[in-house]
């Protein structure tokens, strides 16, 4: 019975595939799937009901994401520090690189699965995706531009007047449509087609190798309490025992001014690690091996160190070279080549 069902589903699948191939172009032009929650993901945090993703809104958001006019001297776009081929990070840069070669203090995080984020930035302070873009836009060392100037620049362009009209019914460019369009693009940057996802969704032919499976078991034992599945972050802010850097970045503390938040940073997702290096809030580790060695032997007992990293008085998480090899094998199943190659998310 089961296998008969499977056969039917398989045949149907083939049929659909065949149809798709025939009318791919037509399909693209006519069908807009909008925001689709991956089957193995929880409900999104972002309030989509308040900003339903439409084709026009998404396309406007995408145009804005790749629009250098969002920076004061029209040189840097969001996409400059959030590059798709690097899972929307700035590969090779420890900290973000703004206008006039100014350098920020933090590593640009991936634009990935943001609809499931309840807080933004390495040091928090922003809790609504619709208000997040204000931070990099107005930061002196990033885009250094005012929102009002951006609206004026875009308002002068027939292209944007038409796009805002199509997406939000009015040519008038202001905070609400501008932020909502950017959010529509960003929430569509969903990475959910890694090998891990296919294994979890039991998609045809997907299974872990023995090494990956062993790595998965190790991951569940040693990493998953903070990097919880399926997003590979629990969205919390923790001190993972990094030595305090030369600029004494205090993490969440400046936003809350609570001593208990000193040196806590947002737990990053482990998805797409092969593309998102360097790692940590200040990009101090160039390789994944550097990260694993940090947890194995370099954790420091700084204020508010996460208790998981100091069990029975022992700092860190012991990882043998065998453990590291297995973990690395598992972590590489979180790379999502469809995500970094998705034409829909690329600059048009």
């Amino acid at each position, binding site marked *: 019975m089961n296998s008969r069902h499977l056969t039917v589903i398989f045949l149907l699948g083939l049929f659909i595939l065949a149809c798709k191939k025939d009318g791919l172009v037509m399909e693209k032009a006519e069908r807009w799937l909008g925001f689709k929650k991956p089957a193995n993901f929880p409900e999104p945090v972002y309030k989509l009901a308040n900003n339903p993703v439409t084709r026009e809104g998404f396309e406007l958001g995408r145009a804005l994401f790749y629009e250098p006019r969002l920076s004061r001297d029209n040189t840097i776009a969001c996409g400059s520090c959030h590059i798709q081929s690097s899972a929307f990070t700035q590969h090779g840069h420890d900290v973000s690189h703004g206008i006039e070669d100014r350098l920020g203090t933090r590593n640009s995080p991936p634009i990935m699965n943001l609809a499931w984020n309840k807080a933004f930035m390495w040091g928090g*302070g922003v*809790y609504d995706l619709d*208000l997040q873009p204000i931070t990099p836009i*107005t930061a002196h060392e990033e885009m250094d531009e005012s929102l009002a100037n951006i609206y004026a620049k875009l308002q002068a362009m027939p292209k944007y007047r038409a796009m805002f009209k199509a997406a939000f019914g009015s040519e008038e460019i202001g*905070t609400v449509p501008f932020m909502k369009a950017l959010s529509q693009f960003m929430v569509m940057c969903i990475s959910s087609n890694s090998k891990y996802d296919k294994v979890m969704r039991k998609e045809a032919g997907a299974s872990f190798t023995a090494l990956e499976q062993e790595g998965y078991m190790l991951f569940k034992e040693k990493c998953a309490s903070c990097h919880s599945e399926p997003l590979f972050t629990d969205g919390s802010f923790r001190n993972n025992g990094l030595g305090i850097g030369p600029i004494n970045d205090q993490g969440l503390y400046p*936003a*809350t*001014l*609570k001593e208990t938040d000193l040196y806590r940073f947002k737990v990053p997702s482990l998805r797409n690690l092969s593309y998102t290096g360097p790692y940590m809030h200040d990009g101090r580790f160039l390789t994944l091996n550097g990260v694993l060695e940090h947890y194995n032997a370099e954790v420091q007992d700084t204020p508010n160190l996460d208790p998981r990293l100091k069990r029975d008085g022992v700092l860190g998480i012991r990882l043998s070279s065998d453990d590291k090899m297995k973990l690395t094998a598992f972590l590489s199943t979180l790379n999502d080549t469809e995500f970094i190659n998705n034409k829909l998310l690329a600059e048009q």
Partner: protein
Amino acid sequence: MKRTILYFVTMITLALGACSKKDDVAPDFKEENLAPFSIEFDNIVGDRTFSLNNTGSPYTNAAGEKFTISRLQYFISNIKLTTVSGQTYTVPQDSSYFMIRGDDRASRFTKVKVPEGDYTKVSFVIGVDSLRSTMPVDKRKGVLDPAAGDHQTDGMYWGWNSGYIFLKFEGNSPVVSDDANGDPTGKKQFKYHIGFFGGYSAPTINNIKTVTIDLNAAGIAKVRKNRQSNVHLFVDIMKVFNGKNSFKIAENPNVMFGAFSSLIAENYTAMFTHDHTEN
């Protein structure tokens, strides 16, 4: 019997109605019977009028420090009134956010509509309430638009730590040092940017202050359709320095994020005195 009572009640009501017209007794309080009302935030500095960059005759605070003012902006929101008989009216929130600017005299009136009536008490929030501070972007219009003003000059929105600056007060004083604690640019500038609404999820500093003014002594507000009732307040900016937590500019020339901001917020809560009411 019932009819008789009804008759009497009607007669009395009519009689009262007649009286009220002659003697200007407060009309019945009806929420839909709206008339113009304003509170005027008339900035002053101690014994002197408010002026920007008056380098020729700087002000002097209680600590004897000379200073001039280059920028003054603050939010007034959530206006609420109480009548003689204790009825309260809260101005609908969407029309109850105002930014008073030292460089724009016209901004000193918070013009709203309230039911006709005689009011003995007004209250308002200095700043932006926590609920609005966490609302979606659609609910941030006008003075609440994060795009209003430039973030480096007159903007009142903190991007990196989502929230509004409730009071922005900047100026110059020779006592400001040239080091990192003061003004490294050598311009002798002091800056007080006071915000913090209490945090999105975890509680943080809450500097939202509600001020209630009793109007009985200096004149109640008689709000009627055919006139503009205006409660004229003096707002003494000197209180920022000379309030109950008085401090020296030299010691705290820059206050933005930090526990000290709460002391300044307590100080500025005492800025408001009711001078008179124009009915």
